[in-house]
């Protein structure tokens, strides 16, 4: 049956009239959306074209936000370079003609070329493809190198990875007898696809996607498209797909891959395959999004930002890391190699030896172990740049394998078990490890949850267990492989300072955990900053009760000791365990996580005199990662009477930015004269530059960076030991580098605060927790502190309800038996303490906090709860 091309009905949600055109090419009529006419009418000349190809069973409606976004950007009040957007309905699809012909991939690629010839499309062209529109758009890209300027892909594939079955939903649709029924006779395939969106598509948008596929005749193209999926090597379209896949690998243009991980069709293996073909691609993973990523995220804004930065003329955004220009400091393994002949202890793992005795690893042993493991990794096929995920609890084994992997140029992926299995799995899948090194629980989780990567076990497993967990080697095996390789006289690759060395995951307290990439040079700089600031060096004894810093012990040439207990559960660490560790290593420095401090204080009564004596030798205590209450610090101070207590400020992206001592905190409390409040986190350490991006009336950090005292805004930091960037989060990375220049790497922290006249930094909250009332911008932390003081130390959170610009302030105080309005006495004292008018004072038995720190209050969850409650709805618990 033949049906002519037509234009979609007007009034489809989000699709303005006037962009539809009918063009005849390749012997058939096409419907396409094209903003060229609108740009032309406004006298605007586009700098290039985005050629958008939908998949099956959608149509060009999928690209409506890209076409409206590009048009608004070009013609709006603050015009940006214009991009023409041409979004086609493939033949037999959408509102293009129904010709009754079965079209193969090869036909579709050729026909798209005929169409662009007919349109007279001149370069530069960026192809944009989703789903099976991906291969079609890439086929066009491969065939038009002269016009091509870039490629953008959304959840697609060009190759079915070896040994992996075709995705289940497609296999089902391709089954004999099912194909016709699922795709054409009934709208099942269409409906299933539309139902994938989270949150669900609105009924109106769903209807718009259904509109061109109202009857079996119009759905013929959906059927043919599915039938054309090259599900086997004998399939008629396999050669063309192979040709495209091979061609993609030689594309030299910039590429952006937008990926929704919740996709039952295109999974991590497909993304991995794409990135192997285009290792230079920028990747943005949108956690929570899936197959219909174009409906689930602000993809259009990301695409337009990307083309604007990557392809616009006179772009100066391709930053080179400033590290390259400074003399790189020695690699983090250098102190270990220097100490390779020493017999002195390097690492003490309390309780890891026989019968629960301490296990002492001497420098010579550690250096040899690391060398053997490094050679073993190379022998096992690990190459520079390969990603090695470490699912090993803090231990001598973790330290050894970490340094071995870094030594050979592999990128270590470190995610904290504190993320929970779901968060950890999301992080690991997103990081695409080539190898997972794990203790048994990690390997079991990896097997059960299907995490990618070859497996290496810490312990030697029985053959049955090793096989069932798909474990190829144990660390013992690696050492033997390494010894053989060393005996053979082979060397090790030498990573450059600008090569990636590690991906560290954030706590995930503000959304899904993000992978933060560090280069070798940046890790060295971090080690140097720690050594300089805390005077750590050869033979300093460090109690490593806080994993991130603990791992740096060997890099400092320092002697570190891991206290007895589960370091992944810091709240269980006891004072005795800390003291024993200090005694064993003759330690003078104590690293503890804020969550550990309370239990250490609580278990202090059990300390024996010798343990107390060991603690008197401590001269530095360092606790970082979350704010520590002063009274808790004071109690810790009583246990370590000769120590200075430090609570540095930093983040996964920059671990040591400012520092303050207990004395400094006390001093700040008496000299907080400007009354803005917040948590004083001290002065920037040597080599760190802290600036403020002032907030505008809307609470956005749009002002020019300043160091003027008293100006509240986003905290922007710069240092040699700052991260390189985020991993596969192009849009997040871009935002965090908003203030970076060619000369200076800067990180926009998302924290809000101000500098005072003494140059100290005060943190006032997170950017997304800034409130905008009718009377101006309000940051939460200062008011929360006043409330906490007025209520005898009860924790409090300040949130807003109502529209931004006229938000009403609500204080939520911890306590009470049921969540709800505070009683009138509490409300009155809280109102009196807060320096701003409060609409309501609420209480709840426990404020929600993040998993890792158990101290960062989830103000977003509280705001949702308060909003429902104060609307008069049934709100339950926050």
């Amino acid at each position, binding site marked *: 049956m033949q049906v002519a091309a037509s234009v979609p009905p007007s009034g489809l949600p989000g699709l303005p009239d006037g962009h539809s055109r009918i063009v005849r090419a390749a012997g058939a009529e096409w419907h396409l959306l094209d903003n060229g006419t609108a740009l032309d009418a406004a006298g605007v000349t586009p700098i290039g074209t985005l050629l958008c190809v939908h998949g099956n069973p959608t149509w060009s409606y999928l690209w409506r936000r890209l076409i409206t976004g590009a048009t608004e950007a070009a013609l709006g009040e603050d015009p940006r370079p214009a991009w023409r957007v041409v979004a086609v309905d493939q033949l037999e699809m959408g509102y293009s003609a129904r010709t009754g012909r079965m079209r193969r991939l090869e036909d579709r690629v050729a026909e798209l070329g005929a169409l662009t010839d007919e349109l007279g499309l001149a370069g530069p062209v960026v192809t944009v493809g989703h789903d099976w529109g991906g291969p079609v758009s890439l086929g066009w890209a491969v065939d038009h190198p002269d016009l091509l300027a870039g490629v953008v892909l959304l959840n697609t594939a060009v190759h079915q990875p070896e040994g992996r079955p075709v995705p289940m939903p497609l296999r089902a649709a391709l089954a004999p007898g099912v194909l016709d029924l699922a795709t054409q006779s009934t709208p099942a395939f269409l409906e299933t696809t539309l139902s994938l969106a989270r949150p669900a598509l609105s009924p109106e948008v769903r209807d718009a996607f259904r509109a061109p596929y109202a009857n079996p005749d119009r759905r013929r193209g959906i059927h043919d498209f599915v039938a054309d999926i090259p599900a086997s090597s004998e399939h008629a379209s396999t050669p063309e797909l192979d040709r495209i896949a091979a061609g993609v690998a030689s594309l030299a243009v910039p590429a952006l891959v937008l990926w929704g991980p919740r996709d039952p069709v295109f999974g991590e293996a497909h993304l991995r395959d794409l990135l192997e073909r285009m290792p230079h691609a920028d990747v943005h993973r949108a956690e929570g999004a899936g197959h219909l990523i174009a409906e689930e995220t602000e993809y259009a804004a990301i695409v337009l930002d990307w083309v604007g930065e990557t392809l616009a003329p006179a772009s100066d955004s391709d930053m080179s890391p400033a590290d390259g220009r400074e003399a790189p400091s020695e690699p983090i393994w250098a102190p270990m190699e220097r100490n390779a002949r020493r017999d002195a202890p390097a690492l003490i793992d309390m309780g890891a030896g026989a019968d629960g005795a301490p296990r002492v690893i001497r420098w010579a042993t550690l250096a040899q172990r690391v060398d053997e493991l490094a050679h073993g990794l190379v022998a096992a096929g690990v190459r520079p740049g390969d990603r090695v995920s470490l699912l090993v609890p803090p231990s001598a084994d973790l330290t050894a394998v970490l340094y071995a992997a870094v030594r050979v140029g592999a990128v270590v992926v470190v995610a904290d078990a504190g993320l929970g299995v779901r968060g950890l799995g999301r992080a690991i899948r997103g990081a695409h490890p080539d190898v997972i090194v794990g203790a048994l629980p990690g390997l079991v989780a990896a097997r059960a949850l299907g995490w990618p990567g070859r497996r290496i076990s810490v312990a030697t497993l029985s053959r049955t267990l090793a096989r069932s967990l798909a474990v190829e080697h144990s660390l013992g095996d690696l050492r033997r492989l390494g010894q053989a390789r060393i005996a053979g006289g082979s060397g090790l690759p030498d990573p450059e300072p600008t090569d990636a060395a590690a991906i560290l995951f954030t706590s995930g307290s503000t959304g899904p955990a993000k992978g933060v990439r560090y280069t070798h040079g940046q890790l060295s700089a971090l080690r140097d900053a720690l050594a300089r600031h805390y005077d750590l060096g050869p033979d300093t004894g460090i109690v490593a009760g806080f994993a991130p810093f603990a791992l740096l012990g060997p890099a400092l040439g320092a002697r570190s000791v891991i206290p007895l207990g589960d370091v992944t559960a810091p709240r269980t660490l006891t004072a005795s365990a800390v003291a024993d560790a200090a005694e064993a290593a003759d330690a003078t420095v104590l690293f503890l996580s804020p969550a550990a401090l309370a239990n250490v204080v609580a278990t202090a009564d059990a300390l024996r005199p010798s343990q107390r004596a060991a603690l008197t030798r401590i001269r530095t205590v360092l606790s970082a990662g979350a704010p520590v209450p002063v009274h808790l610090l004071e109690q810790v101070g009583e246990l370590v009477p000769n120590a200075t207590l430090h609570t540095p400020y930093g983040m996964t992206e920059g671990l040591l930015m400012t520092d303050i001592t207990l004395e400094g905190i006390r001093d700040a409390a008496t000299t907080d004269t400007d009354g803005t409040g917040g948590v004083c986190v001290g002065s920037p350490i040597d080599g760190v530059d802290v600036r403020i991006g002032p907030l505008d009336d809307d609470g956005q950090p749009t002002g020019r960076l300043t160091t003027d005292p008293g100006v509240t805004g986003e905290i922007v930091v710069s240092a040699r030991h700052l991260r390189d960037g985020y991993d596969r989060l192009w849009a997040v990375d871009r935002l965090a580098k908003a203030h970076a220049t060619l000369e200076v790497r800067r990180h926009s922290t998302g924290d809000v605060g101000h500098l005072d006249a003494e140059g100290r930094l005060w943190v006032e909250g997170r950017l997304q927790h800034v409130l905008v009332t009718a009377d101006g911008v309000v940051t939460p932390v200062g008011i929360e502190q006043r409330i906490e003081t007025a209520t005898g130390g009860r924790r409090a959170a300040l949130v807003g309800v109502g529209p931004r610009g006229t938000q009403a302030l609500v204080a939520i105080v911890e306590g009470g038996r049921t969540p709800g309005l505070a009683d009138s006495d509490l*409300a009155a004292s809280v109102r009196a303490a807060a320096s701003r008018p409060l*609409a309501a004072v609420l209480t709840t038995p426990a404020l929600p906090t993040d998993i890792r720190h158990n101290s960062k209050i989830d103000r977003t969850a509280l705001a949702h709860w308060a909003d429902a409650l104060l609307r008069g709805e049934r709100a339950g618990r926050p």
Partner: protein
Amino acid sequence: MRVLVTGASGYLGGAVAGELIRRGHDVRTLQRRPSRVDGALDVLGDVTDAARVRTAVAGMDAVVHLAAKVSLAGAPAEFDAVNVEGTRTLLDEARRAGVTRVVHVSSPSVAHAGTSLVGDGTGRADPDRARGDYARTKALGELLALESDAPGFAVVAIRPHLVWGPGDPQLVGRIVERARTRRLPVIGNGAALIDTTYIDNAVAAIVAALDRAERVHGRAYVVTNGEPRPVGELLAGICRACGVPAPAWRVPAGAARGAGAAVEALWRLRPGRDEPPMTRFLAEQLSTAHWFDQRRVREDLDWAPTITIDEGLARLAAWTAARN
């Protein structure tokens, strides 16, 4: 300026008339009962009576129109007669008499369809969706008023939300009376945020609208203290200030709305002198948030509240103490 204030025997009307006199204006009033406003010239009559209205507006420069049937129960026709036809008559006569400014005092309920309002702006009056006869007829009246805005006849609508203060027989009086007889429920969890307006602030906003009518004409503004508070806390605060027990019993919001509808229907059949203990309108007022974006009205009228809720409650308590 010569100003006619209608409804000056009411709480807000009397206060507006008094304030205009203090500011040196010539004030005439129109209502059925004596206004008891010192220095005002009363014209006794009904806004539905065209002849009385004509007498009242003669020679006036401006009108502040507060007269209305403000009740939660009653026959629909009575609301229409006063709030719609009375307003139409007043506007017609005022224009004919050469009045140049009108401040039409309306109510936020004209744009309230019963859902929660959270930081909303001033919505358009909507008689079709307004809840109950009072809100419906006030919506019609406001639309009439704003439609009559024309060059030389500047009309502005002010919608004060829940005005209260010392001596207020409406909100405070009813709350205290109901609390005394234990008929004052806190609907739902008592947490719904409600905007209210302390009397002095409402008066100042109306006077500011009169002063600026020629710049802001044709528009409607919701006026509040800009301090939303949980309804339970407000009621308790007012009760405390007036020395009566705070509300004790709670009704789930859904059940109360059902009960309100039933009581309201029953009341139509057996009209009495008192109002029904609860109507749907009141249930909604007490169980859903309604607070407003005050940025535009403050900027346009160059006005801001000077008495906070806490200060207002203190004044209410002092007034109560002085009376006892």
